[in-house]
């Protein structure tokens, strides 16, 4: 049990962090646009929906879900049901895209379809298909993480029994009567998450499409001129209308996901993976292309960072050089050095970790304690901690920016730590989602036994609880660091009017330089490579601490 004062303060701090910036932002937007919900939607309709923004957002998100499932389910099946050499490496490579910063994914696909790759970017059909494929690449690991643990550890006697019954004699019968009902909650939960991430996708839409907007990218672009009384009032209305629609759609998706997750089969008879899995050589036909698909955009980024275009009278040629790296890591008058961005990103990540980890832990512990005495309040707090999932990162960035401008504009522009507020808002819910299941699975008798041995609360916390939850703590920490370093949407909104920058934002800033400079693409890819390597290192270190049947949340 957590001290009630600690529990209350964690809830108050979190509420302030979540509600205050969003409240201040809404207050400022409403102050400019007036309180007229119908008017906001009408303005959004007039300016954007009529131009197909909502339609485009929904269509691309839906198609992304369809493609992600179509690619992900066969891969999860192969990984879950069969034995593979270097199994954990294969699994790591296939699930790695999810922890890649979205801007790295965008740069990877841009390189593949750009002039250093297939050179087909200028065609409209190409970028739309690329966007959907990039979303599938990004979210593939969700399907694998949700489905593979169920497939790999289900007691084989369940399938063996069905084979001896009339309805399970055929493969199709077993799929229909065993695997579909068993996997459906996991598949549906993965589909919901993919929909949420594709619906709010920002970096991929911003970089890959040729000016096409989703609700998210539209809000980010319009946001810079919002919040000023009497200036471009319609933009404030548009943001209010768009965030209202987005919030409603995301809330329904998240509620659906939460409901599905509760139904997931956590108490199925479990067996060792070695008992379940068999060899399957033909499976390579699926696993090998999947591996190439997973690593190709990342290899493309790395190679492209060393390829420099040279144009002369006879045409255009390319040569190998480190000039792109030198350009990225040298400050110019208009652009800070990538070193500065790296230092900022590391600083933000470490401070975010120092705040989000204890805060997330205290919230998770409070929910766990309440579950035993006041389950209804626990459920409300549980949903409340997921609230930032229903608010896109761009909206969080806008909230922090407009909120702080309302308090003190000068402070906002000069306060180096501003992005940390957004990063804490974004990462804390992930900490709760990782720590809470671990707390739930911790047998209370460990603590009770400590009590009967005369150990104080303090001793029990440090000698029993922390060591026993070490894996979840490390995974949460690494997740916070990776998410903070790769966060683009909120940072882009918060930092673009300030003197500081982060690695993802500087990639976008380098890209914004006119393309006649041959070092632009290699320099942007050089910074992307650095970000990719950091994410990769962090990801590999989490795998060691992941429980065998983690339910696949993150």
């Amino acid at each position, binding site marked *: 049990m957590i001290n009630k004062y600690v529990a209350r303060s964690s809830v108050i701090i979190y509420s302030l962090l979540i509600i205050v910036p969003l409240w201040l932002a809404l207050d400022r937007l409403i102050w400019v646009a007036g309180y007229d919900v119908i008017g906001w939607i009408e303005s959004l309709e007039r300016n954007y929906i009529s131009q197909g923004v909502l339609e485009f957002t929904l269509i691309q998100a839906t198609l992304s879900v369809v493609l992600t499932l179509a690619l992900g389910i066969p891969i999860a099946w192969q990984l879950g049901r069969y034995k593979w050499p270097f199994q954990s490496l294969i699994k790591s490579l296939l699930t790695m895209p999810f922890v890649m910063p979205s801007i790295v994914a965008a740069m990877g696909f841009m390189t593949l379809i750009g002039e250093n790759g297939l050179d087909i970017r200028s065609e409209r059909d190409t970028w739309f298909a690329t966007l959907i494929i990039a979303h599938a690449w990004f979210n593939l690991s969700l399907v694998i993480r949700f489905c593979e643990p169920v497939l790999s550890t289900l007691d084989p006697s369940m399938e063996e029994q069905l084979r001896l019954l009339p309805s399970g004699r055929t493969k199709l019968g077993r799929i229909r009567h065993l695997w579909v009902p068993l996997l459906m909650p996991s598949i549906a939960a993965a589909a919901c998450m993919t929909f949420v991430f594709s619906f709010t996708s920002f970096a991929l839409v911003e970089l890959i499409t040729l000016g096409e907007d989703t609700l998210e990218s539209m809000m980010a672009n319009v946001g810079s001129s919002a919040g000023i009384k009497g200036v471009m009032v319609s933009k404030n209305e548009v943001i209010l209308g768009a965030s209202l629609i987005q919030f409603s759609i995301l809330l329904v998706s998240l509620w659906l996901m939460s409901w599905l997750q509760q139904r997931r089969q956590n108490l199925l008879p479990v067996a060792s993976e070695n008992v379940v899995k068999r060899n399957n050589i033909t499976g390579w036909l699926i696993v090998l292309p999947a591996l190439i698909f997973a690593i190709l955009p990342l290899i493309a980024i790395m190679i492209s960072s060393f390829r420099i275009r040279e144009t002369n009278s006879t045409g255009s040629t390319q040569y190998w050089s480190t000039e792109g790296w030198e350009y990225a890591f040298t400050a110019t008058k208009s652009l800070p050095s990538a070193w500065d961005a790296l230092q900022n990103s590391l600083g933000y990540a470490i401070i975010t970790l120092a705040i989000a980890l204890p805060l997330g832990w205290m919230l998770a512990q409070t929910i766990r304690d309440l579950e035993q005495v006041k389950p209804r309040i626990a459920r409300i707090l549980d949903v409340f901690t997921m609230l930032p999932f229903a608010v896109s990162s761009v909206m969080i960035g806008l909230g922090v920016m407009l909120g702080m401008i309302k308090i003190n504009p000068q402070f906002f522009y000069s306060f180096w730590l501003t992005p940390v507020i957004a990063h804490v808002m974004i990462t804390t819910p992930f900490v709760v989602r990782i720590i809470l299941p671990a707390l739930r699975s911790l047998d209370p*008798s460990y603590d*009770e*036994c400590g009590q*009967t*041995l*005369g150990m104080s609360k303090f001793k029990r916390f440090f000698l029993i609880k922390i060591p*026993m939850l*070490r894996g979840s703590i490390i995974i949460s920490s690494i997740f916070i660091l990776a998410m903070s370093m790769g966060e683009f949407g909120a940072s882009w909104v918060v930092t673009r009017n300030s003197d500081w920058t982060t690695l993802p934002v500087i990639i976008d800033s380098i890209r914004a330089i006119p393309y006649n400079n041959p070092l632009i693409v290699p320099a942007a890819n050089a910074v992307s490579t650095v970000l990719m390597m950091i994410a990769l290192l962090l990801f590999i270190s989490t795998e060691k601490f992941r429980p065998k049947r983690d339910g696949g949340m993150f």
Partner: protein
Amino acid sequence: MLICTKLEKSFDKELFSNFSLSLNPGEIVAITGPSGCGKTTLLRCICGLETLDSGQILLDDIDITSKPAEERGIGLIFQKPVLYPHLNVEKNLKLGSKDGDFAAALEEVNLSGFETRDVATLSGGEGQRLALARALLAKPSVLLLDEPFSSIDADLSEKLVRDVRSILKERNCPAILVTHNITIADSFADSVISLA
């Protein structure tokens, strides 16, 4: 000396009421009764893991009724041995006492040489012996045993019952055992109380 007076506890139904018991130094009492009659809850109330609805518990003339579990000085052996998997045998023992004689404690429960063993490799019987050694290292004023022999097969259980009883008697440590097994209760305890 442990004196329990008019203990009362109910959840959805009344588990026990008006339960009184006095336990002298070195005395071993067994409480028997069918499943669900409140035996485990009674032990949890005595050691402070659950709160009583009413009643009073005195330990060596000190009222411990509202003291937290960690301050009561009462040990508990759970039905299944609670061993911390992130610590080896010796480090598990250290939770009972930082500077005890661990070799002697292990020898007393027939686990000599087990200091560096991973607790995951211990059998059910070995786990219970280790839990007992750890509980005794904490020098409890009273030791409570919540069906500790039920998860062990019959042959081993018989030997463990004899061993644990003789250890407790040697140390003059009072103990309360709850069990649904009358044979074990008879062979382990000096007296048997039925909580039906």
